[in-house]
């Protein structure tokens, strides 16, 4: 365990900011249209699937924190190097970096797709991706403090969106929710599995952990953030189920945005046009922190300056956005990412937890033996 991260208190963040970090990385582009995907399996019990997925995040986060606590002040990259040795560890680290890149890229491309579908059908992909990437580069070069600040503001400034869910209730009926638990447990779990793409993001904990000042409070704020995310997804899902009927929900690509379409004020109609643009602020922390997570891993592998890294990374992402053109391609990408994320975010941390526990036991036994000798 010689690769722990030593930081001065100046670079660290307060534990309560972790709430905003975890919460803002979880909510991103997935929230636009996750209802349809979950509904396909779980039908009108989709909200139970959301709850199950939320529960799963709590369990996984618990394992993550326990694993991290063993190492004191280290991130996933360091732990993997320690557990598996240099070569396998670095190989796994590269996979994780690749995962961060794909997740980053997927958020970017999905948002661009929403803008193109909804507001500017004629706008070119490369233009949107350049503008967004420049903003992200500007934030990234400001350092972690700035990125956490963006997380904070993206949560605070987006709070007003939640009361907007009251508007669609006018056209909702409770009957849509009944009978509860009509589908079998397998379908519910399938539905929960479909939530993966939407609910991931909290794995940033693996990377940001060494940067937290009072590490004892980590689990408190993480679970609080997971809870509030689950609550938001749950309320959106409930409103959507009550607002749409099965047939319509399955055909609506971005159910959340269509939900907003009904909202009008005396000074403004068609709220979803504002919402789509405003979502830029909500996806910014996603993008920034995935980028940062990839950077943290990269500096473990090779010596690279942050400026150089961010430009290479952005260039790759930029050319990526040009490659993925059509909606089916994007959907395929999301499905694959969801599948991969399920193993990387949900299954692997539990596994790693068990391995570290075993290793800890093993080493402590060995130490005891050594002492005896």
């Amino acid at each position, binding site marked *: 365990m010689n690769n722990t991260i030593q930081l001065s208190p100046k670079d660290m963040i*307060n534990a309560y*900011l972790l709430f905003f970090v975890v919460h803002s990385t979880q909510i991103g582009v997935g929230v636009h249209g996750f209802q349809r995907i979950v509904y396909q399996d779980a039908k009108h019990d989709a909200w139970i699937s959301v709850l199950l997925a939320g529960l799963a995040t709590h369990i996984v986060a618990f394992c993550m924190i326990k694993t991290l606590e063993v190492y004191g002040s280290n991130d996933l990259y360091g732990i993997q190097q320690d557990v598996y040795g240099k070569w396998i560890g670095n190989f796994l680290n590269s996979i994780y970096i690749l995962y961060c890149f794909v997740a980053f890229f997927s958020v970017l491309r999905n948002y661009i797709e929403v*803008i193109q579908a909804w*507001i*500017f059908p004629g*706008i070119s992909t490369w233009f*949107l991706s350049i*503008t967004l990437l420049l*903003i992200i580069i*500007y*934030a990234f070069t*400001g350092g972690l*403090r*700035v990125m956490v*600040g*963006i997380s*904070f*503001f993206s949560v*605070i400034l987006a709070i007003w969106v939640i009361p907007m869910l009251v508007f669609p209730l006018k056209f909702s009926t409770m009957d849509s929710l009944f009978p509860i638990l009509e589908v079998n447990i397998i379908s519910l779990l399938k539905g929960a599995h479909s939530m993966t793409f939407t609910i991931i993001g909290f794995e940033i904990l693996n990377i940001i952990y060494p940067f937290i000042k009072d590490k004892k409070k980590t689990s408190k704020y993480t679970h609080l953030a997971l809870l509030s995310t689950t609550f938001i997804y749950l309320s959106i899902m409930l409103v959507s189920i009550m607002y749409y009927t099965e047939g319509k929900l399955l055909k609506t690509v971005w159910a959340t945005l269509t939900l907003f379409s009904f909202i*009008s*004020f*005396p*000074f*403004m*109609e*068609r709220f979803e*046009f*504002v919402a789509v*643009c*405003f979502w*830029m*602020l909500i996806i*910014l922390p996603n993008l920034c922190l995935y980028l940062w997570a990839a950077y943290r891993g990269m500096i473990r592998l090779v010596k690279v300056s942050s400026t150089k890294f961010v430009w290479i990374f952005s260039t790759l992402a930029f050319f990526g956005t040009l490659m993925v053109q059509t909606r089916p391609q994007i959907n395929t990408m999301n499905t694959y990412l969801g599948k991969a994320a399920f193993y990387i975010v949900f299954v692997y941390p539990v596994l790693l937890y068990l391995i570290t526990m075993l290793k800890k036991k093993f080493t402590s036994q060995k130490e005891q033996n050594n002492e005896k000798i």
Partner: protein
Amino acid sequence: MKFPLPFSKSKHNKEKAPEETAAPRKDIGMMTPLKMDFVQLIKDATQDPSDLIVKDIPPNITLIYIDNLVNDQVLTDHVISNLQKKSVDTPDSIKAALSIPEINASTRLDVIVKSIVTGSVLIHMEGHSQVIMANIPKLESRSLSTPENESQVIGAQVGFNESLSTNISLIRRYIVSPDLCNEKFIVGRRTNISVALLYINGIANEQMVNTLRQRITDLDVDSLLDSAVLSEMIDDNSMSAFPQMLLTERPDRFCDGLINGKLGIVVDGSSMAIVCPQSFIEFFQSREDQNLRWQIATFSRLLRFTAILLSVFLTPIYVGALTFHYEVIPQAFLVPLSESRALVPFPPVFEALLLEFIIELLREAGARLPTKIGQTIGIVGGIVIGTAAVQAGITSNILLIFVALSALASFTTPSYMMGNVIRLIRFPIIILAGFWGFYGIMLAFCFILIHLLRQTSLGAPYLSPFYPPRLKGLANSIIRLPYPLTSKRPEVARPVDKEKYKPEPIKPENS
């Protein structure tokens, strides 16, 4: 973070003003006991100006001074009469004879020359190489007046003027305390301007004082004509449009800062004083908020914040909605909006830029003209050009209202420097809105947010107390909390003594 070129970080230590301590250089001349040589030396060193007066007082004393720099009254009453009346034979006896507080002696030419240009009378005695410097400067300053740029209805009506000593005496009147520290620096290789750094010992954070002291002493400039220049030079990020230090001409606002643990800088010859560290939100708080009842102060604060948001985003939203997002316009607005624009030949972005440009022109012209004419130009220009523009069909009257409203709103900012920024950032946002509608506005918003997050003021986060969030401070900066709830100082300056007073439970009035 420091200002880069051309102010290179030279290690000249100008902290100690009298330069006896510095090692003598080779070309420094020393004084001679001979009178003629002495006069000639001074004349050479000062380029023999026409107002250099050489006066002999028999038997062996010579006075040299610059006529416009010394106080005539003191010169005749205290120096010349005393020298004539009392018998003096050594430089030390001269020192004793003169009833002047600031009096020094030196034999070094550079010290003497520096002293004569700051308003000293040089007294030389034949046969002695030591020269007495009696500092009796004539301080020309205008009398105190009300602050022009930061007027307020309730509260003190006195502003700083251009004299350093008057300003410091004003500050000392507000803070009667031995803890008020006053450090003096000389800045400017050629102009030698006095700069005073003020803070209250026991409240101000020592680390910040050190940082600021270091930044001032590190400055290597040849002149310093105003505190605004100084503030831009010692800012954390001089490239940002947002000021990171407050410039104020109100002594009460200055002292309010000091009491909250901030540091103040007063520059001789400048009627604006610097207060730092300053957070973004504090630029929008007026000193008057403290003087009003908290409900009313809260109302005017909220009004001001709304005004800022309107000022920055109203015109861009109009441009964005009319150019791209006609869907979001409510049905009732459609007809009036489209009819008001029916005659306008330009796209909305051009129309908006044109109007904003006219408003800025009027403001600039008003600022350059004498006050009375300036007001007239503003009113006449506004009404005449506005009406004519609408009738000629180059702008729509609805936009005219929006633009006028946002201009008006931008003037509610209690800091002139910040008000300028608010007006400036509107232009890029309008252009972005004209190109990409709400997406462009959001781009600009994110950029500004990140930019503000990146800034620091003297190392303190610029967006404090929003980020990092401090609940009490947050509440007290958006609204003004009543006094029983504000026992703590704001966190921006990281004060050593955190509490203003012991918090007491709020008592109902009848108990």
